[in-house]
């Protein structure tokens, strides 16, 4: 298809406009209307005074305003100034008398887009002036929009940059705190061995036994740290593969429950699971889901006082968005709870929110990676993980898994 010539295009753009003409002289109005109607097929409405024009512009939207300068009451310049203050956003063309350059200049200064000197030919050139004005106006608007967009984009970039910097800081903090986390248990192991080698304690006697237990706890703790770090780096590199298979979630819950029961018992916390009577088959990597569950349960134990309770549950639900069935697994504790402002942060990498916890079970201390690993694993199952919590009352962690169809 041949391209439309530029001047026709401009005209096309100026067609079907709604134009307001402020003009007290009916002869002039007639001429303007006629020429605009013919050339631009646009509708011209007439206000017979400046006051009337302002009123109309207050109530209705026009694409363009043409106003005579010499009006009986309010002058064209006053009309222009008033509607600018009102925030009317349409280009304004001033009609001035011959030899009235001063008027034209002050109109342009007040924000008019164009002016036309009233003479015999003015009605013939008016359509062109109108379409040029509209083109200019639109170009200006587009420029403004682009500028705004650029501003917004660069703000977004700056924000992203700040966030990256923060992540970088968190990472350095994390590395220093992790090396610390490694040093302490290592130190305990060394000291335990030294106590035995130096003959200060004897492993066959109660004191020596206690020392060996401490060494054992410390090795357990190191194992957890190393595993967390390995998982984390695998996830970061996108190298963790999920070995998904159809599996009954009830079996997965039971396995997690069995492995965490001793720890819960030690802290005198009741850990229960009331599995549904029917099978609930999910498509998931059972080992990884057990890992998510043990992580959530160990957190729950960590932040729950003696005598508290932790409850595991799984229920089937229809996803309102996809109308597919999914399984919602939950771990509910009666523990410390999480402050509202921290609810979304706790799933982030490296984020550890300091709060009183029980340090007498060293196997529970972690890196602050636990929940972010859980989130990654759940996401690799196209699931979602979230928490509902009230300070002092307890927390419930939920995650979803796709139901095997």
């Amino acid at each position, binding site marked *: 298809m041949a391209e439309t010539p530029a001047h026709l295009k401009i005209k096309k753009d100026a067609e079907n406009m709604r134009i307001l003409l402020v003009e007290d002289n009916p002869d002039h109005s007639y001429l303007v209307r006629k020429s605009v109607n013919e050339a631009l097929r646009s509708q011209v409405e007439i206000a017979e005074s400046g006051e009337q024009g302002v009123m109309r512009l207050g109530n209705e939207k026009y694409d363009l305003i043409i106003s005579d300068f010499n009006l009986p009451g309010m002058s064209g310049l006053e009309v222009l100034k008033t509607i600018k203050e009102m925030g009317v956003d349409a280009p304004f063309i001033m009609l001035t008398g011959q030899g009235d350059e001063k008027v034209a200049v002050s109109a342009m200064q007040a924000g008019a887009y164009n002016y036309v000197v009233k003479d015999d030919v003015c009605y013939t050139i008016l359509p062109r002036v109108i379409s040029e004005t509209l083109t200019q106006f639109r170009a200006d608007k587009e420029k403004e929009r682009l500028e705004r967009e650029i501003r917004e984009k660069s703000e977004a970039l700056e924000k992203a940059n700040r966030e990256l910097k923060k992540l970088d800081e968190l990472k350095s903090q994390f590395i*220093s705190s992790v090396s*610390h986390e490694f040093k*302490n248990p290592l*130190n*305990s192991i060394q*000291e335990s061995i030294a106590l035995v080698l130096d003959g*200060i304690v004897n492993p066959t006697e109660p004191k020596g036994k206690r*020392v060996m237990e*401490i060494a054992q706890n410390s090795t357990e703790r190191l194992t957890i740290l190393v595993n967390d770090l390995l998982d984390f780096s695998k996830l970061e590199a996108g190298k963790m593969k999920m070995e998904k298979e159809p599996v009954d979630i009830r079996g997965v819950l039971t396995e997690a429950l069995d492995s965490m029961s001793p720890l819960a018992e030690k802290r005198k916390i009741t850990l229960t699971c009331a599995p549904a009577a029917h099978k609930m088959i999910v498509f998931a990597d059972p080992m990884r889901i057990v890992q998510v569950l043990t992580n959530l349960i160990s957190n729950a134990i960590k932040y729950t006082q003696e005598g508290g309770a932790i409850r595991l549950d799984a229920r089937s639900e229809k996803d309102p968005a996809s109308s597919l069935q999914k399984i919602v697994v939950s771990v509910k504790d009666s523990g410390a709870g999480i402050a509202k402002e921290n609810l979304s942060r706790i799933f982030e990498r490296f984020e550890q929110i300091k709060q009183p916890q029980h340090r007498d079970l060293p196997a529970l201390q972690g890196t602050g990676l636990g929940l972010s690993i859980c989130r990654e694993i759940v996401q690799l199952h196209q699931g979602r993980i979230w928490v509902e919590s009230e300070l002092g009352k307890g927390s419930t962690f939920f995650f979803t898994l796709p139901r095997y169809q």
Partner: protein
Amino acid sequence: MRKKILIVDDEEDFATLSALRIGEAGFEVHIETDGGKAFQRIQELNPDAVLLDIMLQTDDGLSLLKKIKKEMPQVIVIVITGKAMLMGDIFKMEGAAAFFKKPIDVKELVKKIQELTQ
């Protein structure tokens, strides 16, 4: 008479291990893992020296240090911290006799205790 040492640290494992070696060096060692009870314990025991973990969870270690130095200035306080960021100078200014950063070489710690309690 054996000199009395009180370890105030809520990390029980670490306290236990250091207590054994310090005890072996001829001191009478006590452990307090509850920061909230620490000051009362110090008043009851009137130890020669206190090993104070400044990162206690139940109580602020720094204010505990100030309180000890104000009310029982004769007690030698050795500050221990797990936080690398904290400066030893601050604790010395507040009257701590020595400052150790975890992980601690317990043998060094014993030497320091011996030196300070002589």
